[in-house]
């Protein structure tokens, strides 16, 4: 296994928490506030990591397993993405499915954990989480289909690694649409505005935040980290689709990825500052739009 | 002697008409009795100097259709303390009209049919007419006894047709047929008797308990 794969993976693990920080900072700046320092997430993680834990009497093992599973699945999903631009650590035909379903496993456990507390708020959050996911999933898969059609390759590593660069010239509009829909999916999966608002303070309007209300200490740290990692993953998918880096040398590719991720984070921050959060019953339409875009891309690729 | 035959056949039709036209039960039964006698005579007229077969047939017919069955029917209605009118579902005049039409139709039909022997040509239409009249009586008369009468007329019609080739249908069968008719009417009579007892009426329209 080439060193670059390991390094790129490590890089992702390291900078993952940075992205929420950047997003928040951008948002604060654009709304005329100074905002928390970019490295704030690292501090939070460190603090939480050192804390003890508070558990509800109603909770069970599921509640304590969930954070671990979340991180583990995110990490494995990361190993399927060709971060150095050429190859992924794990790559097999149809690993798209594995990618999506690993993240789903993490979500499943997290939702169960939320229901485990028996708190109506967390139940509500869990319910919204699965709803959002149910609408985001088709969009994601359609994007994958588009990549398969564009590259004729059935694995993330293969598709994003090699042939995509050749595919772009032929299919600019299609792939552009796919990129956009991937971005929308990223906003949803990363529980960002306009789907969710990490900065809100009213439980009734939260989705992800309210779902993890009861977690504390290291557990909560893992959840935060896992969530950031998820964001980074979708970010790297986005970057990988937009900027095929197979041609570049490994270090350059990794650097481009890091830069791209930062850009994505900034973009997220900009969206958050210019858009308002959607009413919950509008979220499905938003994500259906994402699916529609991806589907359009697929159609274009089919006929073209 | 075709003349006699035709005369007898005309009489048969007339008796049927009587059944159609009369208002009194007893008259109907008498008419059927007469019809039975006529049927008994017909073989002799058809096959002059007939064999034992013919005589036996004639005798049996006269005995059963002319004597026993009418007697029996009278017995069956004797206890009935109800009015003896016919009360048809179709008026007498119309019934008679139907009778006439039936005869006409019968003749028309037998025109089409390839008939066996010409000299008995009239036998077939009369038979058909009788059959039709019998069915008509069966369906339009509400009194149980009259339905038996109708059945008898129907049977007579069939029997008339049977006469077209007595020599083809052997004696034994004729006897079997006669016996069956006899038993059938016999049982019907018993049932009529019971109907009288159960319902104090001969009116079979009361028998409408069994429905879906």
């Amino acid at each position, binding site marked *: 296994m080439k060193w670059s794969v390991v390094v790129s993976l490590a890089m992702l693990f390291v900078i993952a928490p940075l992205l929420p920080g950047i997003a928040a900072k951008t948002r604060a700046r654009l709304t005329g506030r100074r905002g928390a320092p970019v490295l704030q997430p690292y501090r939070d993680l460190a603090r939480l990591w050192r804390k003890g834990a508070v558990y509800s009497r109603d909770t069970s093992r599921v509640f304590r397993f969930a954070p671990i599973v979340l991180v583990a699945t995110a990490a494995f999903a990361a190993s399927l993405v060709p971060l150095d631009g050429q190859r992924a650590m794990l790559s097999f035909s149809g690993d798209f499915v594995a990618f999506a379903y690993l993240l789903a496993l993490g979500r499943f456990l997290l939702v169960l954990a939320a229901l485990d507390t028996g708190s109506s708020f967390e139940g509500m959050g869990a319910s919204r989480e699965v709803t959002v996911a149910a609408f985001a999933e088709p969009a994601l898969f359609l994007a994958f289909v588009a990549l398969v059609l564009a590259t004729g390759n059935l694995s993330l590593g293969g598709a994003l690694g090699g042939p995509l660069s050749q595919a772009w010239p032929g299919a600019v509009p299609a792939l552009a649409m796919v990129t956009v829909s991937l971005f929308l999916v990223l906003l949803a999966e990363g529980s960002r505005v306009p789907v969710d608002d990490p900065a809100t303070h009213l439980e009734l309007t939260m989705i992800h935040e309210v779902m993890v209300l009861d977690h504390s200490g290291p557990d909560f740290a893992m959840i935060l980290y896992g969530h950031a990692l998820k964001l980074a993953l979708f970010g790297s998918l986005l970057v990988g689709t937009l900027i095929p880096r197979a041609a570049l040398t490994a270090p350059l590719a990794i650097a481009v990825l890091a830069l791209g991720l930062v850009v994505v984070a900034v973009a997220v921050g900009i969206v958050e500052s210019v858009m308002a959060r959607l009413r919950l019953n509008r979220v499905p339409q938003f994500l259906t739009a994402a699916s529609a875009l991806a589907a359009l891309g697929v159609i274009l690729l089919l006929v073209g | 002697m075709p003349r006699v035959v035709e005369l007898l056949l005309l009489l048969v039709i007339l008796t049927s008409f009587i059944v159609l036209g009369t208002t009194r039960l007893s008259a109907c039964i008498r008419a059927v009795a007469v019809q039975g006698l006529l049927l008994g005579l017909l073989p002799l007229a058809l096959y002059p100097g007939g064999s034992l077969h013919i005589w036996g047939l004639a005798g049996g017919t006269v005995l059963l259709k002319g004597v026993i069955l009418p007697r029996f029917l009278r017995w069956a209605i004797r206890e009935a303390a109800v009015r003896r009118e016919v009360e048809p579902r179709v008026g007498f005049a119309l019934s008679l009209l139907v009778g006439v039409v039936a005869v006409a139709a019968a003749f028309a039909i037998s025109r089409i049919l390839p008939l066996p022997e010409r000299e008995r040509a009239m036998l077939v239409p009369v038979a058909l007419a009788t059959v039709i009249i019998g069915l008509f009586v069966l369906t339009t008369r509400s009194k149980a006894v009259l339905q038996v009468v109708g059945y008898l007329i129907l049977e007579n019609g*069939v029997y008339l047709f049977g006469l077209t080739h007595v020599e083809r249908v052997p004696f034994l069968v004729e006897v079997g047929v006669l016996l069956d008719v006899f038993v059938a009417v016999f049982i019907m009579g018993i049932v009529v008797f019971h109907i009288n007892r159960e319902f104090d009426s001969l009116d079979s329209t009361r028998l409408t308990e*069994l429905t879906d």
Partner: protein
Amino acid sequence: MLLLALIAVPALAAVIAYARRTPQWRATWLIVGALLHLALVTVAWVVPPLPLFKGWLALDSLGLIVLTTVSALFAVVGFYAVGYLRRESPRGGRAFASYLLAFLAAASLVAVSHHFAVLWVGLEATTLAVAPLIYHRHDRRSLEAVWKYLVISSVGIALALLGVFFLATAQAGAPSARPLVLEDLITDAARLQPAWLKAAFIFLLVGFGTKMGLAPMHTWKPDTYGEAPSLVGGLMAGALTSCAFLGLARITQVAVAADIAPFVQPLLLGFGLLSLVVAAAFLVGQTDLKRLLAYSSVEHMGLLAIGLGLGGVGAYGAVLHMINNAFVKGLLFLAVGNVLLPARDGTPPGVSGVLHRAPVSGFLLLIGLFAVTGSPPFGPFLSEFAILSAAFHGGHYWIAATVLGLLAVIFVSLGARVLGAVYGAAAPTGARESAWLAAAPVVLALVVLGLGVFIPRPLFQALAAAAGTLGGWAP
């Protein structure tokens, strides 16, 4: 000689049974007569009997099949009757056994007669023999039932007689032939006058159809079966209809021989389908169990007619279905009888919980339900399969589709009612089911199941031969 014995034995037994004073003896003679008859039939399978009276009486494979069916069913019903007579002694019960035996004699006459007039006589005799049995309860309902039965079937049979005479007339073209004898009719079928033959067929169809209970001549059936004691109902639905079917099959044989099949086929198919439709319509939401069975019988008569009409494998299917129908109907009527015995008068609409009250009968009802609706592995499945294959083979897809649709509707109706009766809350009643009464339907159930998984070789050959004479063949 054997042929004569087949008729004489039950007749004699009837007389003796009537002469006997005690019910025990009458029951005994009923059994004796039935078993002797069955024995004679068995002999007839081994040594084919010679024709009698210049071929008026003869036993071909078709007749033999009908005869066997009737005889076997009668034997079982006879045993049941013994238990029945112990349970309740019908008024005029003295003659009960005799009437039954007389019916057997008449049915045998039908089965062995190759002369249409004789066949007619026998058929009429069967009609008359069962009439008193229907009326045994001597109340208004049974009175009405027997009255309608008598009038309708007598009219029908009278028309059949006319048909017989027409047939004789049609034969005028062949003076050398023995009049109305089946063999001769078939051998010089070519010289029959088609017009008269067709007329004869029509009248015989109506006449025998009335006795079979083909719609729209079926109207007496629900009333009669509903009121008659269930064993009589079983005998009528099983044996009497088989005799009537034999009559129809006979004239069909002539028609096939005279190749007027194109004329005959639509009639049979039409009546068959109409019967199916009517049966389905009246089965929907039917609550009275016996009337239910009556309409189911109409349905199966329709299937028989369709089988005959389709020809080919259908003929085989029809004959086989005749056998199956006889035993299944027997089974169902006896089972229902056991269920209803406690409730003397007709069917209380809300029969339910049989399975708790009378487990055996309940179980038998279930078997009967699945058998009568043509589910594998019961006998009727095989015959209905054959009929269906014939429909497909003849390219009558729409007929096949209609039949299947109607069968589905019929299954829903039957299933809803019978299962409703079998399951559910048990109506409190102390009636225990006696071994006598339970044994008979069990035997029938075994027969039905047996015929579903195994058709003995001789029977199959007989079926094939019978189908052959009906212009068909065996699969």
